[in-house]
């Protein structure tokens, strides 16, 4: 078995180690991206309504 195969095999625990790391990455990435997009959307709406306020 090559070094990489041995690494990916995780001593036979591949089915547990990789999903644990994968779930952590996926969950934190999703939380970060969704929070960021929501922030951008709301900040844009505030900027829009503030400029339309000034127009009156």
């Amino acid at each position: 078995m090559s070094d990489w195969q041995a690494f990916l095999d995780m001593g036979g625990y591949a089915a547990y180690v990789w999903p644990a790391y994968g779930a952590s990455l996926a969950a934190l990435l999703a939380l970060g991206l969704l929070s960021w997009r929501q922030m951008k959307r709301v900040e844009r709406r505030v900027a829009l309504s503030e400029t339309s306020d000034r127009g009156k």
Partner: protein
Amino acid sequence: MLAYANPQRFLRLARTLTPWTLGAGVLLAAVGVFLGLFVAPPDYQQGEAARIIYVHVPAAWMALFVYVCMAISSAVAFIWKHPLADVAAKASAPIGCVFTALALVTGMLWGQPMWGAWWVWDARLTSVLILFFLYLGYIVLWGAIEEPTRAARAARILALVGVVNVPIIHFSVEWWSTLHQGATVFRTDGPSMSTSMLIPLLTMALAYNVLYAAFLLIRMRTEISERRLRTIRLGLEAVS
């Protein structure tokens, strides 16, 4: 601190800090994962499966830490009526909820090969599951009550009542017999873990803390802007 009670001042500071904390958090996490997967040795009892510790334990610590932050913010909101305290507590809840879910999922992925069971109803696992439901309840409560001041009040009470669960979780492994192993880092006689495993673990813990700060800033900015939007709308209604 009190200078930043003004949401506008806080927003200015938050805008500057957001990219830095986000960058630092991602970098630290990358270093932590590298150390955990490549540098740390396999455990002499659990082999390579022990590498799950580097994503499980920091998530579990954050599950508790974020809840304590939420409870402290709620207390500050009650006592000093600090305008940002409710914002901080509300913004923390989804982050803590995700960390708790990760602690549960990675714990199950560790429990199956080590104990031969995905889940056991013992004190540690059950009390963390209750923490997860406390987070969910807190989030739902904010959405369920329409009037903002009443929603804030109810949410504060839930956050403060739920905090009794935190010491229960910490001491559950001592008070009740459990499959879950005891503390190896936060012990009165110091950590009982080799440095080669402690360093990746603490790096990941730091990374998760910095990511919490980054996500908290982002979510607090969102909440402040949403409140601003609400005020603008109310103002427009009053004019028309």
